[in-house]
């Protein structure tokens, strides 16, 4: 318990240093676009593939469980849309990205730490946390909402393809279901979750990377801890965000 509290304190102190003024804005701008490319744009393929197939599975499972004749067929589209926007695209995608992005960030910063590259930055007079971590946090916070919108769109396409190809529903009823009882607040909820989860994934991964010690095995352990901790943090934050925004 004491270790957890100490780590939370250390994490907060790290965040305070991370959000300092960058040494040079022109360098920071370049770093920010680099991180948007590495964290965000490079994640588009995995998000795309996962979204299409998960959307398809949600639609098929919903259709296969619709035994009652009292339920209209367009309910399939409605449930697919609701599950995708409320939970699948923001939360499940973030859990998947916690694995991809979290391990990448922790191992990159951890390797820089153990090979003294971070010490080299500090000796030069560069605030290593602001230089390395701030562009990653901002890049992911800016780009995760884009990934979530992209994921929502492709999930709905995946659902439509699976239903039409299997003949379980027509295009018209699926679209009718998607449009039924639509609330824009659900999109805001999904994007808010994306921003919070992006912050948690990258800041927690950076924390474990930055404070890793030793060699390759320790960097590997840090990457694992980063993925596990950020996944748990996402689930806890998901619970509280749902309480605060939806209820």
């Amino acid at each position, binding site marked *: 318990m004491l270790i957890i509290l100490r780590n939370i304190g250390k994490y907060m102190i790290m965040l305070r240093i991370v959000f300092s003024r960058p040494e040079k804005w022109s360098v920071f701008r370049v770093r920010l676009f680099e991180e948007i490319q590495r964290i965000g744009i490079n994640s588009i393929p995995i998000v795309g593939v996962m979204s299409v197939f998960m959307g398809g599975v949600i639609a098929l499972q919903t259709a296969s469980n619709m035994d009652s004749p009292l339920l209209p067929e367009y309910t399939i589209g409605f449930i697919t849309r609701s599950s995708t926007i409320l939970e699948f695209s923001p939360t499940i995608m973030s859990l998947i990205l916690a694995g991809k992005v979290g391990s990448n960030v922790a191992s990159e910063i951890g390797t820089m730490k153990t090979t*003294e590259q971070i010490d080299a930055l500090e000796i*030069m*007079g560069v605030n290593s946390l602001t230089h390395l971590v701030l562009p990653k946090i901002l890049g992911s916070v800016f780009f995760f909402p884009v990934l979530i919108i992209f994921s929502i769109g492709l999930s709905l396409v995946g659902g439509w393809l699976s239903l039409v190809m299997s003949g379980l529903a027509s295009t018209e009823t699926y679209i009718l279901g998607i449009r039924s009882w639509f609330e824009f607040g659900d999109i805001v909820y999904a994007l808010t979750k994306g921003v919070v989860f992006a912050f948690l994934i990258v800041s927690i991964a950076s924390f474990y990377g930055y404070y890793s010690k030793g060699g390759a095995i320790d960097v590997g352990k840090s990457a694992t801890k980063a993925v596990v901790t950020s996944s748990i943090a996402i689930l806890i934050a998901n619970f509280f965000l749902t309480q605060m925004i939806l209820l």
Partner: protein
Amino acid sequence: MITVEGINKTFGDNHVLHDITTTFEKGKVNLIIGQSGQGKSVLTKCVVGLHDPDTGSVIYNGRNFTEMDRKEKVSVRKEIGMLFQGSALFDSMTVEDNVMFPLTMFTNMTKKEKLDRVNFCLDRVNLNETNALFPAECSGGMQKRIAIARAISMKPKYLFCDEPNSGLDPKTAIIIDNLIREITYEYDITTVVITHDMNSVIEIGDTILFIHNGRNWWEGDRTSIIKTDNPEILDFVYASDFMKEIRASMRASRS
């Protein structure tokens, strides 16, 4: 000149540095030697501010570094160049970008001015036409020289080298030693080198600080270290049986 006054440093129950006082002189290669685990690297990290000493102070030309806030320390650090044991080059950047990095961060030089400075520094360490290579494509000796080029790119007043010869063959080690000595004299800077290498001690050690059990055990120069009878230094300098035999034969021929 760097003055170190009464530095103590502990990690938990481990008291690593005991009341170290010394001076690193300008225009000279100042060596810190001693066996592994005696506190040489910790002392250097306290001097450059990577560790905060528990007590004592580090004074850079009259400026008390240990009492400075982060912003003031940054201004002193811009005057420091450091060569790390593993070179610590940024592996995602080319050689050119590595050497140019401090210039990009801290100067308003134009791209051409920066490139000229990078080429000058690379030329100074005899590494022309390596600009486009990545550190992973360079040998250990080349990486050390690139790190030296990066360290001198901002025209530092102080140069720190942490075991610059580790992992290098004897011939390349001598090239690195000579380069460090030449740069020290050429730019009249204060150079501090941590080393285990007795070749370096004899070749470039203008002043030598021997650390033993975290204490300033002995100070002198390359002539006096050969003549000393201090048992801990003898144990360090003549560590192998071969060296002990040489020492015995030298004494016999003298008597």
